[in-house]
């Protein structure tokens, strides 16, 4: 197998060039997917027979929760790559993805609370799913704080990578919380093995907004990573040349 791509991936300049080419496509995909998905979900998807219109919050709540959890898994993977292969770009990815993941967790928690009021009669309960999501938010805060508190870049990279890897235990807890404990929270909407538990005209817009959230996550991540790469490589010749283009 040809491993050169792996070394290229470690090269900040290569990443900067290729991500610059990808970024516009992800941006277009984000706008299209979210616009179509949200309008479809808000205006055209049928009302839920039990929850009425409040269920329309699902079109932002579920995608945010998905990205929040995937993002954390990504942090753990990036942390592992950073620790094992000393790839600097892995640390850039970890540091840049953490705030986005925290924001996605925030969206999932807030929209969930707002949805909870008309559905369960309360904004918050110390339910297994809700509590484990709150822990996810605190894990993100921990990673962000740790990354900023240590001034030595290599030490900070190691410390945040370890925290990201240890904290990944929370992800299966979130996922199975609705099965392991009796919770108010409804079970999973998406299942790989089963047909969706909702009619197609409700489910398709959800699929679109989920993909849209992932696309937006990618856009935000690439923008942050490109910025961080420019900052870290400030002294190199290619960054100077890149900056001279704008000067």
């Amino acid at each position, binding site marked *: 197998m040809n491993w050169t791509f792996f070394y290229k991936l470690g090269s900040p300049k290569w990443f900067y060039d290729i991500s610059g080419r990808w970024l516009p496509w992800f941006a277009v995909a984000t706008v299209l997917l979210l616009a179509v998905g*949200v309008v479809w979900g808000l205006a055209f998807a049928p009302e839920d027979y039990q929850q*009425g*219109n409040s269920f329309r*919050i699902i079109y932002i709540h579920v995608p945010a929760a998905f990205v929040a959890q995937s993002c954390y898994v990504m942090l753990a993977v990036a942390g592992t790559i950073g620790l094992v292969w000393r790839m600097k770009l892995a640390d850039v990815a970890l540091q840049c993805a953490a705030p986005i993941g925290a924001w996605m967790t925030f969206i999932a928690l807030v*929209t969930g609370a707002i949805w909870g009021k008309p559905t369960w009669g309360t904004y918050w309960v110390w339910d297994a799913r809700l509590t484990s999501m709150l822990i996810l938010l605190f894990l993100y805060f921990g990673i962000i704080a740790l990354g900023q508190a240590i001034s030595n870049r290599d030490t900070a990279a190691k410390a945040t990578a370890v925290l990201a890897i240890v904290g990944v235990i929370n992800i299966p807890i979130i996922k199975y919380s609705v099965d392991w404990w009796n919770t108010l929270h409804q079970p999973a909407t998406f299942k790989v093995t089963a047909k969706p538990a909702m009619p197609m005209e409700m489910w398709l817009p959800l699929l679109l907004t989920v993909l849209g959230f992932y696309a*937006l996550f990618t856009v935000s991540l690439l*923008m942050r990573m490109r*910025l961080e790469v420019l900052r870290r490589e400030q002294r190199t010749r290619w960054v*100077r040349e890149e900056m001279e283009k704008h000067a």
Partner: protein
Amino acid sequence: MNALADFIAMGGHGPYVWSAYAITFVVLLLNVVQPWLARRQLVKEEARRLRREVR
């Protein structure tokens, strides 16, 4: 009641649905605008530094 008012009212769930969407929209926008502004700032500072060095 016309269709638009019905749509906005969401059968009484309007305040919940619209506040959830509004908060989400602001947060998502923030996540794209903030790195964009930071990049502009960095490019501006670097350009100034480069000009100073040339002189």
